[in-house]
């Protein structure tokens, strides 16, 4: 199965995402440069990795979300392509309009890096199906702007439609409703601030993240 990881200037978890994909699929993902105008053929799952694309200047993820490759992703997302964004990737997806809401500066105004307990709210989604016997996981967070915001209407909608996938047990950033990860209406686009790709190795951050990658890969 062919997967891809997008690299923007100053993406810095692109390698980590690639390692995770290879670990789960056994195949190296294609690394796609942000200036490319089209995804390579047959790509079935794309990760927008964490990092500080464009230095987080202006707004996190804003400039990256206007890149040529994201324009192609927007088109393909509508046709059902599976896309996940972690951390900065989540910010890019909201900025691109592929996911509702926005990510604002952490309530404490500081960068926060720690392992974080998450509650799986919807374990029937394409990204969490493998967790169906599990309600809690630990993934590390590492971000300065992970404070999820959406207006009332949007919030009611995503809560009502099962689009909220993960919630923080101990909210590190002030996110509304403790939201840590959401998907779009179609369930194919998913974003979260915590880093599941940092939780795939018992020596480093635990292994709670593996099932997330397995879930989406097997759903395809």
């Amino acid at each position: 199965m062919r997967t891809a990881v997008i690299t923007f200037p100053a993406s810095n978890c692109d390698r980590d995402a690639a390692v995770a994909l290879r670990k789960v699929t056994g195949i190296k993902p294609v690394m796609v440069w942000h200036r490319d105008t089209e995804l390579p053929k047959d790509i079935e799952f794309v990760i927008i990795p964490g990092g500080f694309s464009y230095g987080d200047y202006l707004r996190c993820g804003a400039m990256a979300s206007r890149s040529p490759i994201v324009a192609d992703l927007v088109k393909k997302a509508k046709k059902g392509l599976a896309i996940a964004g972690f951390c900065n990737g989540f910010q890019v997806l909201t900025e691109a309009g592929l996911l509702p809401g926005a990510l604002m500066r952490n309530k404490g105004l500081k960068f926060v890096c720690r392992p974080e307990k998450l509650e799986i709210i919807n374990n029937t989604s394409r990204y969490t199906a493998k967790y169906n016997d599990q309600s809690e996981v630990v993934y590390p967070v590492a971000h300065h702007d992970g404070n999820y915001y959406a207006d009332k209407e949007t919030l009611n909608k995503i809560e009502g439609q099962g689009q909220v996938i993960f919630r923080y047990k101990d909210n590190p950033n002030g996110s509304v409703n403790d939201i840590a990860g959401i998907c779009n209406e179609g369930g194919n686009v998913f974003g979260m601030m915590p880093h599941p790709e940092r939780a795939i190795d018992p020596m480093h951050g635990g292994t709670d993240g593996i099932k997330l990658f397995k879930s989406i890969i097997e759903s395809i």
Partner: protein
Amino acid sequence: MSKKVKITPEVVAEHGLSEEEYEVIQDRLGREPNINELGIFSVMWSEHCSYKSSRRHLSKFLTKGDRVIQGPGENAGVIDIDDGDAIIFKMESHNHPSYIEPYQGAATGVGGIMRDVFTMGARPIALMNALRFGEHSHWKTKQLVNGVVAGIGGYGNCVGVPTVGGETNFHKGYNGNILVNAMCVGLARTDKVFYSAAKGVGNPIFYVGSKTGRDGIHGATMASAEFDDNSEEKRPTVQVGDPFTEKLLIEACLELMETDAIIAIQDMGAAGLTSSSIEMADKGGVGVLINLDDVPQREEGMTPYEMMLSESQERMLMVIKPGKEKLAYEIFEKWELDVALIGKTTDTGRLVLKHKKKKVCDIPIAPLADDAPNLNRPYKVPKPLPIINSSDIHETQDYNDALLRIMGSPDICSKRWIWEQYDRHVMTDTLDSSQSGGDAAIIRIHNKNKAVAITTDCTPRYVQADPYQGGKQCVAETWRNLTCVGADPIAITDCLNFGNPEREDIMGQFVGAIEGMNEACRAFDYPVVSGNVSLYNETNGVAIPPTPAVGGVGLIPDLEYFSSISGAKEGDTLIMIGETNGWLGSSIYLREILRREEGAPPPVDLDVEKINGDYIRKLIRNKRVNAVHDCSDGGMAIAACELALTNNIGVHLQRSSGCPLHAWLFGEDQARYLISVEKNSVNPILTTAEDRGVKAYIVGKVGGMNIKAEGAFDLPISTVREKHENFLPELMS
């Protein structure tokens, strides 16, 4: 400044050059220098670039070893960690800039040290930071801590290199001069290490990175000048960092390094274009011609003087093989960096600068390096403070209170508030970091079954009390910390922070500390491969405590065998390796509980260190221990508390010797390790230790949820944790 500036004695003095130095310049040129030339000599001969006060003493250091590929003299040190892998590392200070503008000062410090490392072909894989702030209650401290920590995180997090450890002290001696020392560790291939010697004539010189602005002009001389109450006026010289551009530079340089296009490469650090071009030419034995009109400029009307002395960040200089220009352009343009061909190497042995069709500088390169002042400053190593007998020291009446006060004191408290602002996990090879509170960070070599261990250490109060013993101790503690995780210590970098070297006693601290450090390096076969000196750390004539920060690197050859502070289990026995005599002079107990800063520091017996450390490593390789922690600040009691907190399990200490209880608990005797072992390992350990001449004895056990010591304290872990965790957040709120 225009080209027409007349060189008066005042102008010479403003450039920090002595009359004699100016005479040498005139002699080498055979004429008066113009202002550009004067500026160039001035920065090259500043303390910061020429190491004029320290050079002769640094040359005593052990710098060679089986694993040393490159010792001091290049941008960073290089060591061999087998399988064709090399580790490249260095530590550097950014003290003065951080005091003036904490966020940008610290951020650009991190940026600068990373450039030293990737310049040599290494991908940065870890960062550390050693910080010293003024008294926690000083009005400026909170703002400085806030800014420095945010700056370090802001830069390292953005670039995507994990910040995995460090140390933080608070002392009134740093009220007017904080220390911000950053260390970077990178990974390269032994056959792909890049150097700065610009060999060959007629080769193109490329400039890459950010444009040159008027930032930091005179930064190098400023870093070598003492502070006074007017220093606020020097503010505009502080540079702003751009981690985004740094990240692009790393990727672009590493990509170009994959080809064979680079002859020489050098980052533009202190004294920017001047020192980078001169160092490259000097090492390569060539001359350099630079056309300043081609230098990418951020502002209009920049003079040659400004361009040559600017310290704008995120810039590199490289000599490219002829014919590879197009390749270089392509890669740098892909990464959206400013790139320009600004000159070439020549056979003249001279630095020639052209600006608007005129020659604005023409000086021989050799004297800039060869004739740089090499002072033999007078020094007097201060006498060690007198030894205090532990029986002459008051015993605390309330051990519970004493323990809590120490655990909640500025130096011992948890630094979580700091390291939670650092991304410790990016690159997914961090096996241990600040998070565990352990002794050394462990970074796996990507895709391999081995790791490097990294630590920084310095106990300034010991160096203050006795520079020689203190110097030994700094090196010994890093060696011990690497040992604690099961690594073979390989080499160190250092950052020697001292006061004004023109004073005999300060110079004496410097010389004494170096002697002690060097002796430890030799005893452990643990060479110095890179480092940095920061002098004139004083305000209104009051110097900082002497602070020779040491960064140690070791190798864990097989991930089957390493250890850390975590892993202690219910029912384990606590064994102390190393003798406990109860040395309280210059201890944390004496300072925090009795408010006394006095007494000779604990002596460091290097032979004992060696056999104890070797034994610990053997126990780890034989999988005999569950957890290991070094016994340092605060002695056995604090080591035991830290072990308990990390593992969230109680400890129960039982006195093992005749020394007074408070000395037994809080004494800071060196060469000690607290280990947590299974019951059935106890006897084998005690026996083999005896065979090897290692002192080993039971000091307690692990279990329950209390931290207690027979006849002294008994507290729930939660109470101790609260004290330990709350100090910094409360201070910073």
